[in-house]
């Protein structure tokens, strides 16, 4: 999928302090029978937000007006578990544009960045300070690797390639396809 370039994200913080939030929490497996992208916002954190009978639970996630944009400040090892790319799809459809954490799980980070969901991994002290300030307006400068929120400034390092993809809207599929000759050479060498 070709993404729009993302230079900055400005939105209020939404804090979820739990560590090890797995992708089954972000989107329960029973919503994975879809064959399309999009329209997964309703499934995002579904079982935290709704009872089995469909009625709303008393959860802060339910206080965010439908589709309003937020930056998710999440706990350590966010997005662990299943590799489902439906997790970043659901977070984006719900209105999240970035996740700020101490560390995101490997496959989740990779999936998120490919879908224009910015992942900012920051130091524990700044993270703890941000976690205390739910609703605080923050700005993420993707190119500079910097978060500014009130009097808090935190730095994050994005993989150089992932950053280029985000800020220039580079399409990884196109990038790999452009290396067709090297791939063909590799295949020929092995066959020899």
């Amino acid at each position: 999928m070709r993404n729009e370039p993302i230079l900055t994200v400005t939105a209020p913080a939404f804090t979820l302090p739990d560590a090890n939030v797995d992708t089954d929490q972000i989107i329960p497996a029973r919503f994975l029978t879809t064959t399309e992208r999009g329209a997964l916002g309703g499934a995002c954190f579904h079982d935290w937000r709704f009872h089995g009978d469909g009625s709303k639970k008393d959860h802060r996630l339910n206080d965010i007006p439908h589709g309003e944009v937020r930056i998710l400040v999440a706990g350590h090892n966010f997005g662990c578990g299943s590799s489902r790319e439906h997790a970043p799809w659901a977070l984006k459809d719900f209105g999240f544009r970035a996740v700020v954490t101490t560390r995101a799980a490997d496959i989740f980070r990779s999936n998120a960045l490919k879908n224009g969901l910015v992942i900012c991994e920051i130091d524990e002290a700044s993270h703890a300070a941000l976690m205390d300030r739910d609703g605080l307006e923050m700005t993420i400068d993707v190119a500079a690797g910097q978060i500014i929120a009130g009097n808090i400034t935190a730095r994050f390092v994005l993989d150089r390639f992932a950053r280029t993809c985000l800020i220039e809207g580079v399409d990884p599929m196109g990038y790999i396809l452009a290396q067709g000759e090297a791939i063909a050479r590799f295949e020929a060498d092995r066959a020899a």
Partner: protein
Amino acid sequence: MPSPSRTLFDKVWDAHVVTPEREDAPALIYVDLHLIHEVTSPQAFAELDARSLSVRRPDLTYATLDHSTPTTPRAAGARPVYASAAARHQVETMEANCRRHAIRLAGWDSADRGIVHVIGPELGLTQPGQTIVCGDSHTSTHGAFGALAFGIGTTEVGHVLATQCLLQRKPKTMRVHVDGELRVGVGAKDLIVAIIAELGAGGAAGHVIEYAGPAIEALSMEERMTVCNMSIEAGARAGMIAPDETTFRYLQGRAHAPKGAAFEAAKARWAQLRSDAGAVFDAEVRLDASRLAPMITWGDSPDMAAPVDSSPPAPSTARMTEALAYMGFKPGEALMGEKIDAVFIGSCTNARLSDLREAASVMAGRCVKPGVRMLVVPGSEAVKRAAEAEGLDAIFRTAGAEWREPGCSMCIAMNGDSGRPGELIVSTSNRNFAGRQGQGVRTVLASPATAAASAVAGAIADPRRILEASHAQ
């Protein structure tokens, strides 16, 4: 240049670099085997269509149906009854995509169908030294053969379909060295759950684990797969075990494994796939297998685990307090004897023939406690046939368990097999996340022996008493 002393991982990685890693771009890595299933592939095929791209190497791609598929018994030739129209549509989309792109599919009428990570090895598709990917985190299972195997997202499934390549940064390496010998009643599942408890849910993040040492070398291929399968539960990118005679014996004669002289030549190549004596790992962990007991989980993350004959620890974080509250367990109170509602024997962790034998050896001549539901779901059609040939299905049925068709079933509970809110289920699968087996369901991860012993007791139980008695005979 590769350094003179390399790890097993380095050797497999180096052999698959199409273009090397640079600071501003990841390496381009060639993929030898791409496994696909119905849940994480439809949007990737749609992306190919949108760009008018074709599948570069359908011959290196292999598809199966496992996640959304019903496991309810059906007469030969009868149409499957899906849990939802969406599940049916997902399966039909997979069938259509495979037809259109000439991809081999182990479909409904195939004797080869089963859980993706069970059939790859079974068919001999999985081989030492390969790079293997699948839109599924438990792809790490295939590392048991000395392959570099890991899960990818749907966008990457599209990349591999179109180019047979993936953009990857080189991960770090960790060696988990296991000394000693597993005792009776303590299996590969207990070993890997103990390792995860030791490392923590994110403890191996960014690393590829190599499992080594006498206790690992003593494991069968099935047991090695159980170990590598759950590497992701410690956050690892992949798990690997150096191939040896056990590996070669397993592969010989498998449908897609090399034959005759080609097999001998492959064996000579595969034998080189081990970490050199001086190879340096980014992290090292040591464990003693002989000190381990059967393990079960007490919380809602796989690293929240303890010996079956112990009790949950006193919570030191809010997260632990929440997990205990969700499970309804109390610190200091014995886990054994806790009443259960259901038992699930299945999944790519523990639904191979050896797992079913282990469970059956506990069940033989015993009954599932009245009021407890027990589902036994073989990992593949081949496992099902083999189990039936030796009468394991009869043991389970006689005991009062349900004998099902192969599939992921209650491991992920998206095919209609799920628990009810509040139920406590002892499960041989790999994830005890809240709601994994149905909204509000509480999952206790355990070995097939522990799960079977618990089914008999109607409560969490230690399998050692039963197994030690039969072992002594």
